[in-house]
């Protein structure tokens, strides 16, 4: 017979305010198996824990129920306390009488009977608890970073410096990401390349960092400490070892294609590096546009290449490697504003997105660093910036604020004035948001020193007239209709999740919000962890973010990964599935539904009429099992059970709750 102790927490007045503690304790004394019941103001405090520990000794308790806050809050605290008093930590159950009871009900005569029902269910469950062992797992001392933007680079360098090997997998031919596309960074107007390139080079040269560029993740299996990852390294058609990056190949290549890096505003060759500072400085052949791959002739690059590094026969290679931790830093995309017909994006060359406009300032950009109209090559006089294109737009876009647009617009307006002194900028905005160190001052400078006209209001229509664009808007502060003859229009398009984020999320096993940004484990207290142990997130794949926040989050994710890699052993999941082999008929339906390939078949021998018979049954690998229990629901005879959430326990809870 169980010897259960029930302890009810007041949580100050958080519970006691709506739950009659005395009545709950009294009722608990009558539950089957309960030999002791007590209460305390704050059970999670040291005094409260001591109370439980002393009662375990004094009353010789073999299992414990605590009626407290959510088990997601303090289950571990109380398990530890129980363990310190000599119990197996899993001989304890939590009745959530705070979040699920006292905080959601207002009346005592409503909350008290419910609290008693929850305590009764917990007591019924704990009576069936068994001591569980926590398996110990090995940790592969190597980290994987998905995405080689500034977040990935920063995290990689931090992990490498801590002494662990780290691989960066980057989809593009070069690391660098979005930051490489920027000319200057706010609010200091540092040249983006000047601060990013050294980091890229450092990553390339660090003995603990491996760059796996032009590559994507095919598959992630396993679990924290032992993720087995398949990385598809796409055929570069260039031998990275032989290539010296001299550039003769792309100089001589006769075939051109729109440059992805320049967002189609310029051309690149069929053999190319995406931008001059690319790391690694090894080109790739874009097979869709290469004459040799299209028509079987040309091969000029191969003929001209001094070290003979061109390899048309190269195939995709799948690298299989084990990692202890994974950081996802896949960045963001820019919304395509052509969904908004009124802005005319895509229909006129002088209507650009913020990121496209940024490239016009860059010396290696499509205009060689001259800020000119793409339509006629003339410098613009009036430039209209429109904020919140797709951001803060409940009806047609995203509800959220993209966070970076107010600042990059101020930056671009300043840069414009410096490049084209007689240019004038107009900014249509909903609110100007400049939270951040030095941000407000920066934006004030744009408005006050650089003559940027801020117009609170929205633009209704943009249409071309003669050689300019007419912008129709409303200045909501004066209530007047505004019409501006603009030479260029710059749309601050929303930052959105990468289009393949859901697929990446599924592969890695992390979930996303409704915009497909990856979810952190807790919005405040676990901002870089995910709900999948060992997988962390950094940068704009989690939500729109500027560079300082991205770098800070990347270092935070790195610290979490380092902490994990520094452990000799990890504690595994105690609540795993278990096959009752005598009863298992061996239909193996459980294998089909297991998300972790934790179940395999095994042959056992059984006595039959004096002889032995061999038959197949299922078996669970407890270090792979994560305890979801999908197998248990598929097993018709209940021959596979989930420790900690057994069929017996759940039925007992149902029975007790219905009493």
């Amino acid at each position: 017979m169980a010897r259960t102790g029930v302890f009810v927490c007041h949580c100050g007045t958080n519970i006691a305010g709506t739950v009659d503690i005395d009545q709950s304790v009294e009722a608990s004394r009558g539950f089957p198996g309960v030999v002791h019941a007590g209460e305390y103001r704050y059970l999670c405090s040291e005094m409260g824990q001591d109370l439980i520990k002393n009662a375990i000794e004094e009353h010789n308790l073999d299992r414990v129920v605590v009626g407290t806050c959510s088990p997601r809050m303090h289950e571990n605290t109380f398990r530890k306390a129980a363990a310190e008093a000599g119990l197996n930590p899993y001989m304890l159950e939590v009745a959530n009488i705070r979040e699920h009871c006292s905080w959601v009900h207002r009346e005592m005569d409503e909350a008290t009977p419910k609290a008693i029902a929850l305590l009764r269910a917990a007591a019924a469950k704990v009576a069936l608890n068994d001591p569980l062992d926590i398996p110990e797992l090995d940790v592969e001392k190597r980290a994987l970073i998905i995405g080689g933007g500034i977040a990935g680079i920063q995290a990689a360098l931090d992990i490498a410096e801590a002494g662990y090997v780290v691989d960066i997998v980057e989809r593009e031919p070069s690391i660098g990401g979005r930051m490489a596309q920027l000319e200057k960074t706010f609010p200091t107007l540092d040249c983006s390349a000047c601060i990013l390139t050294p980091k890229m080079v450092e990553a390339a040269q660090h003995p603990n960092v491996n760059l796996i560029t032009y590559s994507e993740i095919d598959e992630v299996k396993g679990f924290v400490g032992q993720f087995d990852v398949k990385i598809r390294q796409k055929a570069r058609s260039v031998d990275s070892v032989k290539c010296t990056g001299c550039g003769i190949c792309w100089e001589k290549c006769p075939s051109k294609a729109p440059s992805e890096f320049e967002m189609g505003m310029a051309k690149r060759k069929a053999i190319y590096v995406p931008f001059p500072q690319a790391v690694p400085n090894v080109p790739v052949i874009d097979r869709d546009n290469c004459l040799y791959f299209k028509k079987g002739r040309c091969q000029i690059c191969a003929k001209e290449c001094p070290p003979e590094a061109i390899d048309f026969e190269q195939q995709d290679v799948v690298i299989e490697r084990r990692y202890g931790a994974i950081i996802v830093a896949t960045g963001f995309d820019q919304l395509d504003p052509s969904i908004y017909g009124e802005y005319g994006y895509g229909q006129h060359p002088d209507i650009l997105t913020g990121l496209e406009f940024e490239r016009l300032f860059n010396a290696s950009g499509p205009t060689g660093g001259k800020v000119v109209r793409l339509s006629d090559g003339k410098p613009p006089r009036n430039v209209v910036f429109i904020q919140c294109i797709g951001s803060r737009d409940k009806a047609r876009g995203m509800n959220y604020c993209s966070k970076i647009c107010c600042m990059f617009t101020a930056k671009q307006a300043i840069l414009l004035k410096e490049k084209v002194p007689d240019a004038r900028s107009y900014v249509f905005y909903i609110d100007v948001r400049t939270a951040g160190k030095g941000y407000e001052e920066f934006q004030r400078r744009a408005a006050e020193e650089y003559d940027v006209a801020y117009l609170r209001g929205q633009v209704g229509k943009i249409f071309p007239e003669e050689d300019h664009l007419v912008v129709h808007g409303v200045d909501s502060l004066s209530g007047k209709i505004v019409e501006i003859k603009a030479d260029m229009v710059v749309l601050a398009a929303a930052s959105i999740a990468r289009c393949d984020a859901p697929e990446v999320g599924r592969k890695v096993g992390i979930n996303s919000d409704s915009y497909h940004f990856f979810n952190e484990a807790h919005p405040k207290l676990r901002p870089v962890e995910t709900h999948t142990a060992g997988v962390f997130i950094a940068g704009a794949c989690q939500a729109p973010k500027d560079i300082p926040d991205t770098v800070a989050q990347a270092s935070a994710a790195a610290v979490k990964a380092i902490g994990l890699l520094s452990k000799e052993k990890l504690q595994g999941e105690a609540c795993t599935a278990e096959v009752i082999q005598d009863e298992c008929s061996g239909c193996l339906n459980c294998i089909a539904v297991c998300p972790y390939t934790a179940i395999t078949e095994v042959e056992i021998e059984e006595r039959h009429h004096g002889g032995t018979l061999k038959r197949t049954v299922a078996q669970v690998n407890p270090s792979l099992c994560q305890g979801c229990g999908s197998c248990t629901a598929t097993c018709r005879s209940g021959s596979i059970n989930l420790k900690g959430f057994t069929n017996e326990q759940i039925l007992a809870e149902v029975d007790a709750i219905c009493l």
Partner: protein
Amino acid sequence: MAEKSLKEAEKIREIVGQDLLGGRIGLLLGWEKGHYWWQSRPLFAKNEADLEKLTWDSFCVINLSRYLLEELKEHGKVGVLVKGCDARAFNRLLQDNMVARDRVVLYGLPCPGMLDYGRLNEEAGGALISISESNGSVTLKTGTGEKSVERDQVLMKKCAECVYPDPVVYDQLLLSPQGKKEGVERFKSVEDLEELTPDERFAYWEGELSRCLRCYACRQVCPFCSCRECFVEQDNPRWQGRAYQPGENFMFHLVRAYHGTGRCIDCGECERACPVDIPLQELNRKLIKDINQLYGDYEAGVDAEADPPLLTYRPDDPAAFSEK
């Protein structure tokens, strides 16, 4: 007895005889006549004398595949005669890893449908002495005379509603195929029940299930019921109460049917075996119908390679909840 079926039985005996007496199989599962002329029971033939008893007539309704579960423990290789439903049952067992394909020789018997003794009696209107068959009609002999009826009128219900009379899996096909039956309205009674209000439906089932004796004959004959220990007999946890309570009857029948989701081959053996005539196939077919509607056409037992619908998913699957 029809001349045709006698000839067919002769042919079957000859072919399986070669395998059994030649040692290719250690046991043949077939049918022999039972106590009454209107019953054919399973035959476990090991030698020539056993083989003499082999019968193939319009009463070989019992699904033989399930007997493999026990017989494969005793014999290295077993031959089994399979009608359409026996063959689908075999695939069911194969998918559930209950039988080894290479230890079974399947002799396919395209099936004309089996006759229902109850219906024959009804049609005869008096004490039925014997029947004879020719060209799709059945002649009923009673003490007072003879009467001819269409064969379709006196088929077992499960056979009248059978879609796949031909074996879907076999090593050797012994008779000529019947062809897939089109236009069978097997979901009609399910659809009729769906038209009722919940309370009317509940009253219907309460009435039907109130007769249940919990004899579990439906389970014993079912090819999808291959658990070593059925949930109804387990003590820890006790899923199924022993008491004679309406709720307990529902518990058993709903769970039995649910366990057949995407697995029931619609052979109708459960309903045939039921001593109190509970329309069990209506529960099975409700699930067949809905799972097909929700997750695409799937006919359990027809293709042993196709994924059973509850063992797979698609990310964009629909749901039957009021919210997607």
